[in-house]
């Protein structure tokens, strides 16, 4: 049995223009209803003294008689000789925009219904506009209720010309304009005897001629990372191929980190792993070089990487009850990325029914409005222009865990310095809580305490970690001998008491920094367990997260490296009490993170730390 692709068709149109009747008629004429359903509805109508209508078939199917309006998106299957269809019924009522978007965003094609008796109305235009925002380009326009317009060619042409012009302005071209009557069945499944002047397709013929959304395989590769799994010895990067093709052996660039690695294997369970992964595939990959990767990263091929920016333009539709405010903090979700953002400005608002552009600065976008906006994110966002790669060119705006609007990206990056940054941030008078700081900064404050022998690589790794965190938009700073010994602790020497005091002061400073919301990274040998335990206690007193990182390498390795020639001097007796030579080093027994710098490269060590550190810095847990 041949398996034809399913075609998902959304039905839209102004209220009472006959969408439900048309769907009912299609279900009836394609014999897609359950046995006895029609008789049952006819009987019910007779009992209530009502004339039978095709719309009742749909209503009966949806158990919505008491409402007599379509209340939410539903899916209704029917079948023609050519293939299987799924009708997405989207409501015609203005207030149900969110349901229409939910339904229509999945559709391959749209049927737009206009009643001949009433002509093009507000929602006829608004819905077409929304279809363009949703990227649905295959549109069949049904001019319904031709029986009420005496099957007049003039009336049909009038509506067709008016609406075609509107669609052209939107950059759309309808596949067909069909004069029809859902009530009488003219030109739905059967060719009309009343309208012999019409030679185009019937509604079903027009649908059968529509192709499913064209393949995304031929576009550049975009692999959205959903998660990194370590269920067994494998480290599997799981995600979805949004567009393009990915093969084992491909060199990938991971944005926004811009790290490269090679695909070692494509992982699938109970399936052929060697097969290339193509657009739409949910797969896993392993890499040859273990770079740090997390949810939200996008992998691409070197030659065709996505845009990386923290400021861009978009057309945004708003569906939440509360208006969108310029300057307020929202979350933006694009693919698997989730970042804090602000709407910097609303440049114009589009009246979606007249397509009139209202060019005036606005501070708010009301429900059901569409605006052209500038968005700024806290950290770099990986994206594409919508007209190039739709999957990475569209996003939703989330407030309080609720999807409030959606938008499409255009025009790539540019910086408009005339627009003020982050205005209208709402301040309150109360003392700022750690959670407020965490939400504001996008991460919790923490003390990341490095310990290890001289030459183990603490400073190098600390600086690298600082850079990685900074690139993520995080507030971070490294405390090390260079910036502490010369200032704050310039009165301290290297006697045992002074070393203890040195570490105590570093502990207090790190705690204050963490309390301010920063991720304070300390890079000191800190050889004694008791000192490190105190550092932990000081941090915990301030309710800051404390993460001990053991930068581990054998003494011989550190001595061989000897970057500052200190071991040499210690061996020569020029320095006394040098850790590892004539002073002890007490390795941590339960450090949160351990890296082995004799076995791991600097990048691998940083990747290990990031992987374990970042989950601890999520603001969600800040209210514990």
């Amino acid at each position: 049995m041949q398996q034809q692709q399913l075609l998902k068709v959304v039905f839209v149109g102004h209220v009472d223009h006959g969408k439900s009747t048309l769907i009912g008629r299609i279900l009836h004429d394609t014999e897609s209803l359950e046995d006895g359903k029609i008789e049952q509805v006819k009987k019910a109508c007779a009992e209530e003294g009502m004339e039978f209508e095709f719309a009742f078939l749909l209503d009966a199917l949806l158990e919505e008689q008491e409402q007599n309006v379509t209340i939410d998106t539903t899916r209704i299957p029917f079948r023609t000789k050519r293939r299987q269809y799924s009708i997405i019924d989207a409501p015609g009522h203005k207030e149900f925009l969110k349901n229409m978007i939910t339904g229509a965003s999945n559709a391959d094609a749209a049927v737009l219904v206009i009643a001949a008796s009433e002509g093009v109305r507000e929602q006829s235009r608004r819905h077409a506009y929304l279809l363009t925002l949703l990227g649905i380009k295959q549109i069949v326009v049904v001019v319904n209720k031709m029986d009420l317009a005496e099957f007049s060619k003039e009336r049909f042409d009038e509506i067709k010309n008016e609406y075609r012009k509107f669609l052209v302005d939107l950059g759309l071209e309808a596949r067909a304009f069909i004069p029809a009557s859902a009530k009488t069945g003219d030109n739905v499944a059967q060719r009309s005897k009343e309208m012999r002047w019409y030679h185009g397709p019937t509604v079903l013929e027009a649908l059968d001629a529509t192709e499913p959304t064209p393949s995304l395989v031929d576009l550049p590769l975009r692999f959205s990372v959903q998660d990194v799994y370590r269920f067994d010895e494998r480290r599997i990067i799981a995600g979805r191929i949004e567009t393009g093709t990915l093969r084992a052996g491909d060199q990938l660039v991971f944005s926004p980190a811009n790290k490269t690695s090679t695909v070692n294997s494509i992982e699938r369970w109970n399936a052929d792993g060697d097969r290339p992964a193509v657009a739409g595939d949910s797969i896993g990959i392993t890499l040859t070089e273990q770079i740090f990767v997390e949810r939200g990263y996008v992998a691409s091929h070197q030659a065709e990487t996505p845009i990386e920016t923290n400021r861009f333009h978009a057309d945004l539709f708003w569906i939440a009850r509360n208006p969108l405010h310029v300057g307020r903090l929202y979350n933006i979700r694009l693919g698997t990325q989730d970042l804090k953002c602000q709407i910097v400005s609303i440049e114009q608002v589009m009246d979606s029914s007249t397509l009139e552009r209202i060019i005036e600065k606005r501070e708010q976008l009301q429900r059901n409005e569409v605006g052209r906006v500038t968005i700024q994110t806290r950290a770099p966002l990986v994206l594409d222009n919508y007209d190039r790669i739709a999957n990475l060119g569209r996003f939703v705006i989330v407030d309080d865990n609720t999807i409030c609007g959606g938008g499409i990206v255009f025009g790539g990056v540019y910086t408009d310095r005339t627009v003020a940054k982050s205005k209208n941030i709402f301040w309150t008078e109360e003392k700022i809580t750690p959670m407020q700081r965490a939400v504001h900064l996008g991460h919790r404050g923490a003390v990341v305490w490095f310990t290890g022998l001289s030459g183990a690589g603490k400073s190098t790794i600390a600086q690298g970690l600082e850079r990685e965190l900074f690139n993520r938009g995080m507030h971070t700073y490294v405390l090390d001998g260079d910036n502490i010994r010369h200032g704050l602790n310039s009165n301290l020497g290297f006697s045992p008491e002074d070393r203890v005091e040195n570490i105590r002061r570093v502990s207090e400073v790190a705690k204050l920094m963490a309390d301010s919301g920063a991720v304070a990274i300390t890079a000191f040998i800190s050889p004694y367990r008791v000192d490190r335990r105190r550092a932990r206690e000081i941090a915990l007193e301030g309710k800051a997260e404390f993460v001990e990182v053991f930068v581990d390498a054998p003494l011989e390795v550190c001595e061989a490296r000897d970057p500052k020639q200190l071991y040499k001097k210690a061996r020569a007796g020029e320095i006394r009490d040098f850790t590892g030579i004539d002073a002890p080093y007490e390795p941590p027994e339960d450090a949160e993170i351990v890296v082995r710098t004799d076995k791991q490269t600097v990048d691998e060590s940083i990747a290990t730390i990031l992987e374990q550190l970042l989950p601890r810095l999520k603001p969600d847990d800040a209210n514990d």
Partner: protein
Amino acid sequence: MTGTQRTHLDQLENQSIFIFREAYRAFKNIAMPWSMGKDSNVLIWLAQKSFFGKIPFQVLHIDTTYEFPEMLEFRDWATWHYKLNLVVKINEEARKRGIGYETHDPVTVTHELKTVALQQVLAEHKWDALITGIRRDEDPTRAKERYFSPRNAQFEWDYKDQPPEFWGQFAASAAKGEHVRVQPLLDWTEVDIWRYIQREEIPIPKMYFAKNGKRFRSLGCSPITHPIKSDADTIDKIIAELEETKTSERAGRAQDHHERNAMQKLRAKGFL
């Protein structure tokens, strides 16, 4: 083109895996109800696909105490076979009160032994997400569902005001005491399920196959689940039979038909 033509089943499978992984990332404490029925077993299979052979959350069987013995046998075998972390829940309290098909109507019994049992076990384990195997084509009320569908603390489903869901972005969070139903099979049809079982060779209970001119098309509690007339004793024959039929899948499930809109009432109160 690469020559790698994706079929309709490939599309469904990959979309389901995507949803599984989004759910696993979004929720801390997940359970997957499992009835041992065909859809449930497809769900188990897809979970393994999503997590490379591991099912990293608990699997829940609501035991109504009216289970077919063959289903319990299958449960024990599959639990061992898939190494499931299985939780079995019986609403003991309702059984003690004498709630049962012998004395009560099927809507009441279904509500008590399934929905209330689910409420109890959810409260015990504090799950914030349930991964269910419901499909849009099963029932008109299920046709309105979202992939991520929030339920309030009373288990109620506000189907008139559901969160928007588009572009692969979901309502992926639950407030305290609430939970989200995650429904990876929503787009699948009954025939899709069978074709997938066939393609992947997924183990299912034998009761789906015809014996002595009868087979079960949908499986529930033994007193209220009735076989249909059928000679379909292979998956091929079942698929051929479904291509022809115009009666609904759940026609043999008495609780759906006890009164008008029974399913809608059951589901609004928290039934899967």
